[in-house]
């Protein structure tokens, strides 16, 4: 029997935090009020001094966890391989940085780290003893445009399988399961000068069951004639590659990876008034996860914030609340 639980990534409330409308404490209590069991945090976003945060900073986090009785599920970690302008970090430097992240996660009561896409696979094996010591697992993110067809991701997934350890896993971002191109992205980008014809073309790809990422890949990154025709300006041509972060894959791509999947980002562009998200079918995905015996959290990751039209209010709180209500309703239907 599966065990799927609701979580909120604090990424979803970043604009509230940045503009000081909400403190970390306000945000944690807000998440609790939405009925989520778990919370996900980007230490680099809301824990000052990460990954070397002060004892006081860590104590404050632990106090908020206790106050809200939220489970601190996962820390989203980045590896600054480009810390310097003139060179890439060495392997030793990468291991050292990630060791600090693991120790900090441990202090925060967190047992899982999401490594951002493109982290090199070779960090994994040397870090396994550190993970065991602190009881923190590392999971690579599979994100649209950086998913199963991308070399760095493939290498990492192979390494996860090879090591076959409970300390090495995968996080899936559901932006790989878009069935329609997000209309909030279209609205935002047309407002910024991209021609509607470009998005009309992308929409036709989704209607055919494919997506821009797949089409560009098939064409060895040359633009097919229909896309060339859709581009009205030089700006359009430059902008097209930035529209490939929305993939239209079948859920079955997960089949072979299910034993290693420790967490899901339920990407959110726009909850509509009718209920479901505009681009993704969460209900069908939750059913798939239930049938495949998934044990873990599904975490709200609102990204419509960066596509908010100038002059319109930020909808982070509303969108998070709507998605949580919907997911919890779906889970109730599954579990009764």
């Amino acid at each position, binding site marked *: 029997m599966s065990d799927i639980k609701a979580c909120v990534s604090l*990424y979803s409330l*970043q604009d509230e*935090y*940045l503009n*000081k409308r909400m403190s970390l404490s306000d945000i944690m209590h807000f998440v609790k009020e939405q009925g989520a069991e778990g919370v996900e945090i*980007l230490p*680099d*976003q*809301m824990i*000052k*001094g*990460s990954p070397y945060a002060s004892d006081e900073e860590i104590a404050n986090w632990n106090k908020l966890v206790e106050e809200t009785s939220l489970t601190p599920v996962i820390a989203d970690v*980045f*590896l*600054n*391989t*480009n*810390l*310097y*302008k*003139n060179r890439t970090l060495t392997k030793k430097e990468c291991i050292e940085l990630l060791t600090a992240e693991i120790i900090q996660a441990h202090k925060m009561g967190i047992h899982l780290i999401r490594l*951002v*896409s*493109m*982290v090199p696979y070779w960090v994994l094996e040397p870090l396994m003893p550190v993970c065991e010591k602190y009881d923190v697992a590392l999971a690579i993110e599979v994100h649209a445009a*950086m998913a199963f067809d991308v070399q760095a991701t493939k290498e990492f997934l192979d390494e996860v399988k090879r090591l076959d350890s409970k300390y090495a896993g995968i996080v899936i971002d559901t932006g790989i399961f878009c069935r329609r191109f997000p209309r909030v992205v279209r609205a935002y980008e047309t407002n910024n000068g991209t021609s509607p014809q470009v998005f009309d073309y992308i929409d036709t790809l989704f209607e055919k069951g494919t997506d821009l990422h797949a089409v560009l890949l098939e064409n060895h990154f040359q633009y097919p004639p229909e896309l060339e025709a859709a581009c009205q300006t030089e700006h359009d041509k430059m902008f097209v590659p930035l529209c490939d972060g929305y993939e239209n894959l079948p859920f079955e791509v997960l089949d072979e990876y299910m034993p290693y999947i420790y967490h899901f980002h339920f990407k959110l562009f726009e909850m509509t008034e009718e209920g479901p998200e505009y681009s993704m079918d969460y209900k069908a995905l939750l059913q798939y996860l239930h049938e495949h015996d998934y044990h873990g959290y599904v975490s709200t990751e609102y990204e419509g914030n*960066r596509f*908010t039209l*100038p002059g319109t209010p930020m909808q982070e709180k509303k969108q998070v609340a709507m998605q949580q209500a919907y997911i919890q309703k779906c889970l109730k239907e599954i579990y009764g």
Partner: protein
Amino acid sequence: MFDNNVFIADSCKNVEENGNVIGYEMKTNITYYRGIPLSMVEYVKVAADGEEVPAEDIRISLDQEDWFTLKEAETVTTYKWEYGEPLYVRVLKEGGLSKGTHKVKLTVATRTAYIPVPLEGIKEREVEIA
């Protein structure tokens, strides 16, 4: 993508030191969704009334105590620009901006860990110097 983060409103003013106006400065939030060491600032550009400020006249600081040139900042890994905390951008210019209205444009770009191109934010504001 992060244009909304750049150049905090009403933050631009002349800077006085020992009775002399040595330039002007403004505050900006980070053009990213997380904090990063200062060395990961790819570039900062300022233009006042359409005129680009030479890079060597720009200083940046996180605490208003320690100021770095853009070249120096490339190796500054121990000062972290936190998400939600401002970076102070100062332009050294004797006399600062003259009294009245100016158009000041600030561009900030940061390197991310996984996207090959830097994330840039640009904002031009009308600035009133009293």
